[in-house]
């Protein structure tokens, strides 16, 4: 397997323009002769399908939910970055590029990151034109806020529901195209296999979730915009249905999977309340702008009411350890430190599985400084949400927060055109790996999803189709199509007919999640990863032996859907740990305990040996993937050490 990033050469500033100027185009009247499959209807998939349909391609879009508007992009709260410099605080494309690459700990691809920053401004224009109701100032111009420790205010937002508003914008654009007949929408349809003919991606096999029918769809190329794999940890801030199946099926068919160990753990989530909890809820990290994070200094105080703990017995650990950034240190630093204080027995809140996992996020000072009204204006909806879930009033009692799996920087390896190692197969949004390196900055996920969907795919898909020109027609009775369909039905039969059916998919998922959260979560070490690598195949074996799925495949069967997704997480989890074990350095969200600074708290990156993208190829044996390395070259920016002290 050869990894060619296909980056244009020349000055960074000119690469994207140059690439577009020299790429192939498809004649407008010819576009309808090409069928493009887009799997996923979130920001990347929805925006991509809408834009490609509008250009005249014949688009088929697939979503497992009942409407494209349900995609999990909708849950993003905080905002979207752009280098508009509206507040006149010195921002620029260069600075957004710099922050993103540095924030990613120099494990992202320079050309892609630059392009993301370059496109950011156009995204805001596009969204406003569609009617996205961004927050505005009294003068009527768009409002910005500083987010996640950035030193400029470049984040556009729509109260605490930015993702919702951006997705509805993309959804409406998509529905317009569906109405116009350029996009054929398949809701309640789940992609379960990729069809490859003569080495080129030519279609997908789906299961109609209502009738259970297995369907084949052929096309000239396939785009996967199927999100991340954060649910591999079972508990995460992802939607319950978010899964890795489409990406994983593609991986098994030959698409390299890059940097799976770069998983972001978000510091401000509502802690787990009990053993049967099904998901975790994120609280926008904008809360860290005004909230102060602390735990009791003494172990005996952890069960006391926070109001009974005097100021001198409170440990404001972020403010003490990182005086320059304080509570606004990047996500990975905030998360890890919360874990450390809880591991030290200073955590607060209910005890779940033998440990109190929670720290206080206290607004008492902010309320005193700004007044309750102002705090309400800034965070009212978040406070309400917190109260709805916990039953506690955060105006009176400090919130309790704990990190949770949130976003995955790793994903399918793609080149500059967002094409995977399988020709004709593209990956966009969170499903690919390219722009965020080892750590994603706040308000950058929405930016990347829309950048890929509105601006990159419409060009690169056309460039691909214009290059291959005419592909041989694939009939539905082609042996590769039939083979792919057979793989799907065989697998479903296996799920429905385990030899000793006794356990549910959720039970297995919880077991797997607890293991990798512990061994391959915020903090990782060799012994723990090796232990996980021993246990995962054993859990997987038990899964296929004991999985219990009632009903049949020819009906609406949510238990079957879930079982199939958990089966794929069982395999991805192993690759996650293999990658984490291979990467003998600490960078971004990947923290290896063996690789830290003298004082033990800071991550230690190893540029000499690990300045590369780890792209794993499926070898036929899940436990023995083949590693390919894409060296990272930084022409403009010399990798520097992240320090937030």
């Amino acid at each position, binding site marked *: 397997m050869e990894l060619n990033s296909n980056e244009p050469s020349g000055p960074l500033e000119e690469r994207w323009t140059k690439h577009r100027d020299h790429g192939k185009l498809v004649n407008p009247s010819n576009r309808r002769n090409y069928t493009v499959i887009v799997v996923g209807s979130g920001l990347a998939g929805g925006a991509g399908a809408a834009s490609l349909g509008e250009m005249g391609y014949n688009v088929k879009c697939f979503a497992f939910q009942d409407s494209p508007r349900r995609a*999990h992009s909708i849950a993003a709260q905080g905002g979207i970055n752009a280098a508009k410099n509206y507040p006149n605080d010195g921002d620029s494309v260069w600075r957004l590029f710099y922050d993103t690459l540095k924030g990613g700990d120099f494990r992202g691809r320079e050309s892609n990151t630059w392009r993301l920053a370059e496109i950011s401004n156009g995204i805001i224009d596009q969204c406003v034109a569609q009617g996205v109701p961004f927050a505005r100032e009294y003068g009527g111009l768009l409002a910005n806020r500083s987010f996640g420790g950035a030193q400029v205010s470049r984040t556009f937002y729509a109260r605490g529901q930015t993702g919702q*508003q951006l997705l509805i914008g993309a959804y409406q654009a998509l529905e317009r195209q569906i109405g116009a007949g350029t996009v054929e929408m398949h809701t309640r349809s789940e992609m379960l296999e990729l069809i490859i003919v003569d080495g080129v991606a030519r279609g997908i096999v789906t299961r109609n979730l209502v009738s259970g029918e297995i369907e084949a769809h052929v096309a000239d190329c396939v785009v996967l915009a199927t999100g991340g794999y954060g649910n591999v940890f079972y508990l995460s801030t992802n939607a319950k249905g978010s899964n890795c199946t489409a990406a994983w099926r593609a991986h098994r068919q030959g698409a390299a999977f890059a940097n799976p160990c770069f998983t972001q753990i978000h510091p401000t989530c509502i802690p787990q309340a009990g053993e049967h909890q099904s998901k975790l809820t994120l609280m926008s990290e904008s809360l860290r702008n005004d909230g102060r994070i602390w735990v009791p200094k003494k172990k005996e105080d952890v069960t006391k009411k926070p109001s009974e703990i005097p100021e001198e017995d409170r440990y404001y650990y972020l403010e003490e350890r990182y005086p320059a950034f304080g509570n606004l240190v990047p996500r990975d630093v905030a998360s890890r430190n919360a874990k450390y204080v809880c591991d030290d027995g200073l955590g607060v809140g209910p005890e779940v599985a033998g440990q109190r996992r929670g720290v206080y996020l206290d607004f008492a000072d902010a309320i005193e400084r700004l007044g309750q009204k102002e705090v309400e204006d800034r965070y009212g909806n978040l406070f309400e949400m917190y109260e709805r*879930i916990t039953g506690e009033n955060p105006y009176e009692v400090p919130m309790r927060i704990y990190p949770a799996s949130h976003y995955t920087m790793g994903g399918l390896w793609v080149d500059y055109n967002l094409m995977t190692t399988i020709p004709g197969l593209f990956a966009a949004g969170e499903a690919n790996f390219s722009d965020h390196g080892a750590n994603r900055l706040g308000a950058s996920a929405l930016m990347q999803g829309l950048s890929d969907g509105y601006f990159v795919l419409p060009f690169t898909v056309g460039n691909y189709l214009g290059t291959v020109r005419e592909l041989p027609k694939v009939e539905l009775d082609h042996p590769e199509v039939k083979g792919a369909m057979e793989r799907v039905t065989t697998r479903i039969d296996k799920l429905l007919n385990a030899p000793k059916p006794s356990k549910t998919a959720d039970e297995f998922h919880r077991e797997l999640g607890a293991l990798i959260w512990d061994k391959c979560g915020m903090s990782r070490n060799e012994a723990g990863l090796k232990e996980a690598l021993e246990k995962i195949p054993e859990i997987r074996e038990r899964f296929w032996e004991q999985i219990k799925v009632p009903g049949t495949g020819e009906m*609406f069967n949510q238990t079957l859907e879930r079982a199939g997704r958990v089966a794929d997480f069982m395999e991805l989890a192993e690759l996650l740990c293999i990658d984490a074990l291979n990467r003998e350095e600490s960078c971004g969200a990947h923290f290896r305990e063996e690789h830290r600074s003298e004082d033990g708290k800071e991550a230690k990156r190893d540029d000499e040996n690990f300045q590369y993208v780890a792209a794993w190829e499926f070898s036929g044996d899940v436990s023995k993937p083949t590693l390919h390395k894409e060296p990272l070259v930084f022409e403009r920016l010399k990798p520097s050490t992240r320090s937030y002290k």
Partner: protein
Amino acid sequence: MTERTMNITLHVWRQDNPGKPGKFERYEATDISEHSSFLEMLDLVNEGLIKDGKDPFSYDHDCREGVCGMCGMVINGIPHGPQAATTTCQLHMRKFKNGDELWLEPWRAAGFPVIKDLVVDRDAFDRIIQAGGYITSRTGSAPDANGIAIDKKTADAAFDAAACIGCGACVAACPNASAMLFVSAKITHLGLLPQGQPERKDRARKMVAQADAEGFGGCTNHRECEAACPKEIKFANIARLNRDFIGAMIKAPDDVPKPQPVR
């Protein structure tokens, strides 16, 4: 945090498909923590059913944060249950007490055929948006975002209407199964903004025609929709919808939009 547990009796609507008659079946949820969410309680009952080799009941859900709009069922006669401004997934068991008996039903409306148990087909909402619930803006051709100033009050009001999650509770709550709250939220969101003006009148006519074609009823001012809406979409939006709709009818009475075929 002290923890209370409770036992709940559930009567769940079971229906294999739209063609077959449905009926309530009784299940017991035992030892449920008050901190558990309503859907986690249902998950637990279903886990038990799966282990017993029985067919678990189906219900839609996804984000479990009250924003995707996927979840929703009628709980003791109220869409999304007893807590105001709260989706089913955000409901927690501390709102219930030991011994409570709950009747769970799907949204009931001609426009939302039952797929299975508590799951309904809401494609009609997507087709209403297809009919006109958008602002036409070609990708890549937008002017600078700060080119038009929009006063904060207007932008905020547009946002309030744009917060609709398309769950369908308004339809389920309405005695006429009217979708007017849903339609009017989109009409208000887009109609308040300067970008939405060129298509404003047409939008109202087309969306209303599609809602009619889907089998949703008319609005006769019961205001049940507003009470059931988990996102507090205001009933007053319907007045704005009526104004846009009537305005369009007066301007071009013969220009009747053709709704898309209903699946």
